[in-house]
């Protein structure tokens, strides 16, 4: 399956619920206030949150209230509004060639898919001709190091690892030394998942930044926060806290191959304006796609239906 079809397949499943909801609300073939209110509720039920749902429907209402509208037109209009909100944040992750290595720190709460995302990123960068080194700085979770090593093999990237329970910041430092010595282009640092309200764990992340900067004052050049698409409004708090603690430069949203609609991304975009680099749509090496605001929005409202099967 082509890259694009794969994305659409993943997203099509993602959107099914919102899409099904829209199908039923245009009873009078006209966009009246009641229909707008219903639409707003549908968006809330797709994790947009009360604010973002209101923004989207208010904008739509300002342009099309009391106008005749078919089902498909409503979808396109809605997709347009969502796409407009998301457009500014859709920016690919581009490593600067000058930085050697370009250090990417990957952070997030537990179980969002950091290690898997790193495996996919390593593969993508490798294919684009960069030399990539991985640092297994999740020394806390059982077997996290082994998991990254397997991804390293698949993506053909060397993995710098220590012992389980070792100091994560120290390991990141060593990995940076090794990557510098080897003249690598990119160093991807995996970190242990941590809930953002655990002060000690967040302090550990700050320490890792300090230690990396001892070796390279500009590092890390990018800090990626991995968000799980099934997450609800708590994603807003996650972004806020991680951004304050470790200067997040961009987001990656994972598990978009579910009925998890990822609507919270709209709320996050509206509130923070942080770049969204990519989305994860499966467990395979290829299942990381650049974030395309218009395509995401259209799939979200049920336009561009695609075949169901994805990488499986």
């Amino acid at each position, binding site marked *: 399956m082509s890259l694009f079809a794969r994305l659409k397949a993943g997203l099509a499943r993602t959107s099914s619920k919102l899409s099904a909801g829209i199908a039923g609300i245009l009873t009078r073939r006209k966009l009246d206030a009641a229909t707008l209110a219903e639409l707003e509720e549908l968006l809330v039920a797709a*994790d947009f949150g009360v604010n973002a749902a209101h923004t989207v429907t208010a904008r739509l209402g300002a342009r099309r209230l009391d106008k005749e509208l078919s089902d498909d037109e409503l979808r396109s209009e809605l997709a347009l509004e969502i796409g407009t909100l998301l457009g500014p944040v859709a920016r690919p992750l581009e490593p600067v060639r000058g930085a050697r290595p370009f250090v990417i720190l990957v952070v997030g709460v537990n179980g969002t898919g950091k290690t898997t995302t790193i495996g996919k990123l390593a593969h993508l960068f490798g294919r684009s001709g960069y030399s990539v080194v991985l640092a297994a700085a999740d020394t*806390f979770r059982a077997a996290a190091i082994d998991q990254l090593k397997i991804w390293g093999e698949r993506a053909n990237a060397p993995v710098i690892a220590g012992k389980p329970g070792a100091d994560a910041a120290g390991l990141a430092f060593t990995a940076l030394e090794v990557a510098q010595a080897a003249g690598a282009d990119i160093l991807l640092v995996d970190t242990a998942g941590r809930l953002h309200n655990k002060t000690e764990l967040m302090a550990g992340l700050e320490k890792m930044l300090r230690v990396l900067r001892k070796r390279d004052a500009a590092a890390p050049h990018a800090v990626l926060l991995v968000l799980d698409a099934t997450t609800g409004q708590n994603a807003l708090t996650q972004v806020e806290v991680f951004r304050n603690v470790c200067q997040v430069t961009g987001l990656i949203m994972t*598990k978009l191959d579910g009925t998890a609609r990822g609507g919270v991304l709209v709320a996050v975009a509206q509130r923070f304006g942080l770049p969204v680099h990519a989305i994860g749509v499966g467990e395979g090496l290829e299942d990381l796609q650049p974030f395309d605001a218009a395509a995401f929005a259209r799939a979200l409202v049920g336009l561009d239906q695609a075949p169901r099967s994805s990488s499986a």
Partner: protein
Amino acid sequence: MFDTLTEQLGKVFDRLRKRGALSEADVGEALREVRVALLEADVALPVVKSFIDTVRAKAVGAEVLRSVTPAQMVIKVVHDQLIAMLGGTSVEFEIAAAPPAPLLLVGLQGSGKTTTAAKIAIRLRDRAKQRALLASLDTRRPAAQEQLRVLGEQAGVATLPIVAGQMPVEIARRAMAAARLQGFDVVILDTAGRLHVDEALMAEAAAVRDAVNPVETLLVADALTGQDAVNLAQRFSAHIGLTGVVLTRIDGDARGGAALSIRAVAGCPIKLIGTGEKLDALEGFHPDRIASRILGMGDVVSLVERAQETIAAEDAERLEAKLLKGQFDLADLGEQLRQMRRMGGMQGLMALLPGVGKVKRQLGAAGIDDRMLARQVAMIQSMTPMERRNARLIGGSRKRRIAAGSGTSVQEVNRLLKQYKQMSEMVRKVGKLGKQGLLRAGLGQMPSFPGYPGRPR
């Protein structure tokens, strides 16, 4: 968790309380705010709707509005309804089936199944004296089986040896056979994470279910989950059939909407909650207590239970005997501080106390947190046994040594000693009053935690 929802609802109720009489419109407005608060907390839309409808029907009734304290009545209705939504009474988690009893864990990727598997094994061992065998059926995610093996090692729980290339159903059968031979009471089967829309993987989980016929099939769900919690629970329930839910990462600051929705939708009870990264951080789920916590009424029952679990009875008795004699030295203070830390530290304890939302923020602003507990313990540890028994020995030069030894300052040592002095005076008074006095004085002084300024100075 639940903090922000508590805060939001608190604001609504505060406004409500300020009014004497309530009109239907007043209640309506309050309920609209409750609705937004619940939605922002990720409670699923259909659940919110039915919740609000029920509360409205009960709250605008004549009795409520004409009662002496209408606001209190409305809050009570919300409280009762929250409990009902969370599942009414708590369900004890226990496995009573004939050994080996299979237990199946299912859920999305990254919801915490593997960690939960190890936690359940420990809980069964420590509470029910049941031996559990852990087996990972996750043949998909790299190093997943290894993860369970390592966790089992850390927890001191047996895991089924890994045989490369085996399929989930085969592994499940092998686990059951091994458990039968080796006399295990429970077999905990940890499955691969799967999306509930992935038909193939759902079928695989159903095949495992058919092969072993589990006595418990638990859905492991993340408390951070958004509106999708509803679909998730429905799909797993329909495809595999669930006997209960384990809600993980409840120690995060998500507002707990998933907890409110899953019970209402899945129709099976939340049996356990994961409250931390440590392997003993797994607790029973008590709807009434959670509802109280959401409404800012505190959860004193959990606090007492946690105290009972962490503080050995003999220690408590020894301390009580000393207190009755009017003795309380720095070693006792140190022991108390350490117990507080074991019970989850200041923050953990505060969350369980009634009406402390505001106090908690003030404490945070004043820089009083768990680090301070740690520093005070360090100071006491830097004292000699003789100093701990007799604080009067500690003069200027000893203070400097203690400060240097604990990485603190002389001022901090002074502060600790002053607080100790206040406490020991209190204890002396109590000693004179005898056992009756201990209760009375103890309760009266409750807000003044050891080492923490209870009242403004």
